[in-house]
């Protein structure tokens, strides 16, 4: 009996899909997405905007004007590319680093800032935004996505549930349970794992003996793809096809995007120099999603420094206005919290509410 044979050739089945290389050249013409010039410019605009938002959020956090924040720079192609392949009615179940997708799905910026500040209003999606607020418990959203997808299927809606986690999330039991469940019931779900190489400090090599996360899909009979997560075309195209497949009733897909976060895990004291080298940072920065897409667009005469500066200025203005709006939003009260615990308040909570009402009136 050969213990090697079951795994032989598995890596070839999960080779990384790339369309746009680091130099901004198309290396896989056949897989090129069908996008108009306006779409191409819009994708770039969103990626640049998201990079600015990240830089400003970090600065605001350092000034004490934002709270919990998980930096996003480096992951724009994974985040914006996957989201751009969706429709408005699709349902998002993001992790805590996936605030950009929520914003592009319709969450107003000032609410994203309130979320960062620990204000409940940041979790209240507008009526036309199909999403839950960012997940804190690693991987817990994956089984929930299977449930949302099951509901979409039952209603006959031509939509998908999409959820995001990181490389660490793929080690959770819920990762298996969610994908397995969705597979067993052919639910229209897309599971995106943004493999940014580290779960806080633990490298992906220590998460699993599997060489890819994508191959874990095979264990549950679901297609899995490994994608260059710094290549917005590759991410977009694979999610687009996964979406079509799901809507056609052919079931869920697992997508691993190979990416990197340039910043710390969160702004709460993480020091990446303890676990990452300069060499590694340099290597990944050379693959930057914005740099290669900018080159591609400039080659087609669709982008310019002037255009980029315009986007940067607009982003800064809008961020400034959103922070102002967040500053002016009503402070939350303990009594508001107590009053919302149940639709009908039990007597113990009514008593506790009276106690706080008195304190708040002073």
């Amino acid at each position, binding site marked *: 009996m050969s213990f090697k044979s079951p795994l032989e050739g598995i890596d070839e089945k999960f080779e990384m899909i790339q369309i746009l290389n680091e130099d901004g050249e198309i290396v896989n013409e056949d897989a090129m997405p069908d996008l108009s010039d306006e779409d191409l410019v819009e994708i770039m605009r969103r990626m640049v905007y998201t990079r600015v938002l990240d830089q400003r959020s970090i600065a605001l956090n350092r000034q004490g004007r934002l709270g919990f924040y998980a930096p996003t720079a480096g992951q724009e192609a994974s985040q914006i590319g996957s989201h751009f392949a969706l429709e408005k009615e699709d349902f998002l179940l993001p992790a805590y680093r996936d605030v950009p997708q929520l914003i592009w799905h319709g969450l107003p910026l000032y609410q994203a800032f309130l979320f960062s500040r620990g204000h409940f209003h940041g979790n209240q999606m507008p009526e036309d935004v199909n999403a839950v607020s960012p997940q804190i418990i690693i991987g*817990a959203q994956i*089984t929930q996505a299977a449930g949302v997808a099951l509901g*979409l299927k039952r209603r006959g809606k031509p939509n998908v549930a999409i959820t995001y986690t990181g490389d660490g999330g793929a080690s959770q039991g819920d990762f298996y349970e*969610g994908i397995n469940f969705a597979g067993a*019931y052919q639910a229209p779900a897309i599971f995106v794992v943004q493999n940014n190489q580290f779960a806080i400090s633990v490298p992906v090599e220590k998460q699993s003996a599997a060489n890819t996360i994508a191959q874990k899909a095979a264990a549950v009979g679901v297609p899995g793809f490994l994608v260059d997560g710094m290549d917005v075309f590759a991410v977009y195209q694979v999610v687009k096809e996964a979406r079509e497949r799901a809507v056609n009733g052919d079931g869920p897909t697992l997508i691993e995007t190979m990416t990197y976060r340039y910043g710390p895990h969160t702004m709460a004291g993480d020091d990446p120099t303890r676990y990452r080298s300069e060499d590694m940072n340099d290597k990944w920065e050379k693959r930057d999603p914005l740099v290669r897409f900018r080159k591609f667009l400039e080659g087609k005469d669709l982008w310019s420094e002037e255009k980029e500066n315009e986007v940067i200025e607009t982003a800064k203005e809008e961020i400034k206005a959103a922070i102002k709006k967040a500053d002016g939003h009503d402070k939350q009260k303990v009594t508001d919290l107590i009053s919302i615990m*149940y639709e009908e308040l039990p007597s113990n909570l009514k008593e506790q509410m009276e106690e706080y009402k008195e304190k708040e009136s002073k």
Partner: protein
Amino acid sequence: MMDIKMEDQKTQTKTTQSLTMVQAINDALKTMLEQDETTILLGEDIGKNGGVFRATEGLQEQFGEDRVIDTPLSESGIVGTSIGLAVNGFKPVCEMQFMGFIYPAYDQIMTHASRLRMKTMGHYSVPMVIRAPYGAGIRAPEIHSDSMESIFTHMPGVKVVCPATPKDAKGLLIAAIEDPDPVIFMEPMRSYRAQREEVPTEKYQLPIGKGEKIKEGDDVTIITWGAMLSVAKQAAEQAESQGIGCDVLDLKTLYPLDRNLIAESVQKTGRAVIVHEAHQTGGLSQDILSVINDTSFLYLRAPIERVTGFDVPVPFFALEDHYLPTAKRVLSSIEKAVHF
């Protein structure tokens, strides 16, 4: 007589049928599947097999595989997908095969089902019911006999319900499914087939958060729920033959507690014996003690007695009869309280 909310009182035909508790639960599920398109059942073996206790017998056949879903063997998956369904407008009723199997799903209940209303300020609620057969006494293997209500009564955002009779089981289960908040619905498996009762054939609800005085007496209040109700009643009858009158309270809902029911009775009798089969330390008896302390301290004529499981895991079944409170132990606590 409890205030049963009849939803259709016009029917002149047969209005009740004799059912066991497990049949009454089946009837409640059937009623809700018939009347509400958004009700969906999920669980292991609940479809073709009708559930290991047959609580869902015949329901998949009648309502289809889309609404009575045989899930993968995956408790966290069952509760996680149910949360997903709930935020998507459905009313999932999921079955944990035994309450002792709920632990892998604890994270989903604690970190999501219980909090979603709070953290979205009411934008989302999780109108989900988790049915969980609980308790010892049926000679089941290890882990099948746990009674872990207090880990859920200590969880803000969920309600915990535990019926003791067939009629209550139907009315409370319908109320739980209609409830806009998540409900842990504990079913005393020992009582599944222990008694038959006339159960209304119509749809009716019993109020969550209300207990009931099952027996009236002046000397001591016995407070209990679920499978321990019959033990408490037996002890109360024996006490009566000695001339000790007992108020027997069936709490029915364990969160939120019916504090008025407890307070009124204890203020009358001045004595209380709390009976539950869960472990003593951290058990719900301590919250009931607090209710009595807060509302009725100066009425007390004796220390409050507790008759509970020991602070050990529910033992392998050769010892389970020794673990469970018995009428004899309850009676001895009644006597202790009365003769203090």
